[in-house]
């Protein structure tokens, strides 16, 4: 049997699956983009082409507010979560048999283990007592709650990256009289970057999607995009939310293209 050259980037079938996966991921997104141009107010019945939902969504002050709030919380919470998760991942991998590692591991993954509603009710009771005692009702509660449940989403990809990453380079750096910080900054961190990026992205979208915990923790005037939408389910979701989603999508695509063009030279 003649053997063709093997190439890691060309395993037969893999590319097909990947293309199908991307297609499947974007199919529902295409649907919602199409329906954002619906002239009717439905997300299920097509009544003709129109741009009308864009000005409607844009001029809806509440929609603008909740979208901005969601993005703010997601950004701050995911950065906090990723930072502490990176530290924890560095602390809990590639170290021999330290006592308490299992405990730390379970603690970090704990937010995954109970349905959101349970954490939500517990936080409602706990934070309400703090709110009453201190009088502070700001966004801090939502950000802390989000940062907490985002930690495992950031931690696991970073840990997956770190595990088995060999320490030779770091030890070499240390032997060359690099301070631990220098070794981390110039050796470990760059190697770890893909894991951190993956973790940050997961944490960000997880925060952006959260409904139940936010619903219970929010104070007056702290609706986020998901809680705003959840509360509409009983009535009916109008094409307005499709327009908002499409605008957000457009924003990310612009950011992505910009990033892509800016990094072209260095590649």
């Amino acid at each position, binding site marked *: 049997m003649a053997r063709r050259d093997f190439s890691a980037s060309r395993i037969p079938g893999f590319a097909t699956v990947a293309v199908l996966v991307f297609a499947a991921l974007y199919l529902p997104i295409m649907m919602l983009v199409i329906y954002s141009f619906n002239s009717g107010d439905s997300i*299920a019945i097509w009544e003709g082409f129109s741009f009308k939902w864009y000005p409607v969504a844009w001029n809806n002050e509440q929609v603008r507010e909740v979208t901005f709030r969601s993005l703010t919380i997601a950004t701050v919470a995911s950065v906090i979560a990723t930072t502490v998760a990176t530290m924890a991942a560095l602390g809990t991998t590639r170290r021999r048999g330290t006592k308490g590692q299992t405990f730390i591991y379970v603690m970090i993954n704990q937010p995954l283990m109970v349905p959101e509603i349970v954490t939500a009710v517990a936080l*409602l009771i706990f934070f*309400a007592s*703090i709110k009453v005692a201190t009088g502070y009702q700001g966004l801090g509660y939502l950000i802390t709650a989000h940062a907490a449940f985002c930690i495992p989403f950031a931690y696991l990809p970073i840990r997956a990256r770190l595990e088995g990453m060999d320490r030779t380079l770091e030890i070499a750096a240390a032997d060359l009289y690099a301070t631990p910080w220098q070794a981390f900054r110039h050796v470990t961190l760059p190697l770890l970057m893909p894991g951190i990026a993956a973790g940050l992205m997961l944490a960000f979208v997880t925060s952006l999607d959260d409904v139940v915990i936010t*619903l219970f923790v929010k104070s*007056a*005037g702290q609706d986020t995009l998901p809680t*705003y939408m959840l509360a509409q389910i009983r009535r009916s979701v109008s094409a307005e939310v499709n327009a908002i989603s499409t605008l957000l999508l457009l924003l990310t695509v612009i950011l992505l293209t910009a990033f892509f063009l800016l990094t072209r030279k260095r590649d």
Partner: protein
Amino acid sequence: MKTTLAAMALLLGGTAIASAEGELQLFNWGDYTSPEMIEKFEAETGIKVTITDYDSNDTAMAKIEAGGHGFDLVVPSNSWVPIYIEKGLVQEFDLSKLPNHANIAPEWLESPYDPGRKYSVPWQWGSTGIAVNKTAYDGDINTSSIFMDPPEELVGKVNVTPEMNDVMSLALWYVGGEPCTEDTEVLKKARDALMAAKPKWLSMDYGMTEKMAANDVMASVYWNGAIFRARLKNEDIVYGYPKEGYPLWMDQVMLLSDAQNVDEAHQFLNFIMEPENAAMISSFARYANGIAGSDPFMPEDMMTAPEIVVAEELKGSGSFLPTCSPKAQEYYTAIWTELQK
């Protein structure tokens, strides 16, 4: 008169202590508050209104009871009104600040759950009935048998709204009982009938304005205003009032005990009892309001809609659901849990 009122309110607002100047925190069902009405209120009074949404009476109660929420006004359904009062979560109105209180229609003023309306101002009211797509089934729709014993044509196409009180009451009426009964024989009958009907249902879900209009669901236990909006998109949809009995409900605005902006809240309450403003609320969410004299301001299509205007012969079957005793409540939840498994 309005200017005098505004001036008076301003004066009162000025003397209030420890409240943020000119703001109001409204905690309401999602997509239930007319933005135009809020704009008008803000323009007239200079008070900034912030609306925060909830999706169920249970969530609202849990949050209010926990405290530290920062809300001034909440809009619970009728069966929750006595619970709020009993738990001391709401305060009595200062009627001297509510001259429009006299506008509350007489039939709503003497409500069984808040006699004299000292704690609650009507927001909107409606019924829970049965919507049917007449291309799928053409028979009598003014009966609960549509979902309790679906006709051949509707088997596997019926949705039942996941609202315990509404569904339990409909089922109890259907088997000849009354809501909140503690009679185990009747309850057993209702449970058995529900359990027997469940395999013939498609779903227990919300969002029926869309799904009925899009022909995904051919019949559903649902709220009249939502079905009214579905019918505007799909004229095959008709709304029935079960003759065995059907629930009426009302959501009303209540003033929280720990409200920070009590004066602003009174101004708002007075504002929404103005017939013109009450009509604005109705034309947004498509439910009737409880304010006398709002009819001339209502949209034309609502004044004739069979979903809003109940036929004379079916009026008698509708009634407000009482607040059940803890014992009856326990039976309800046990049956409901069994049903949802």
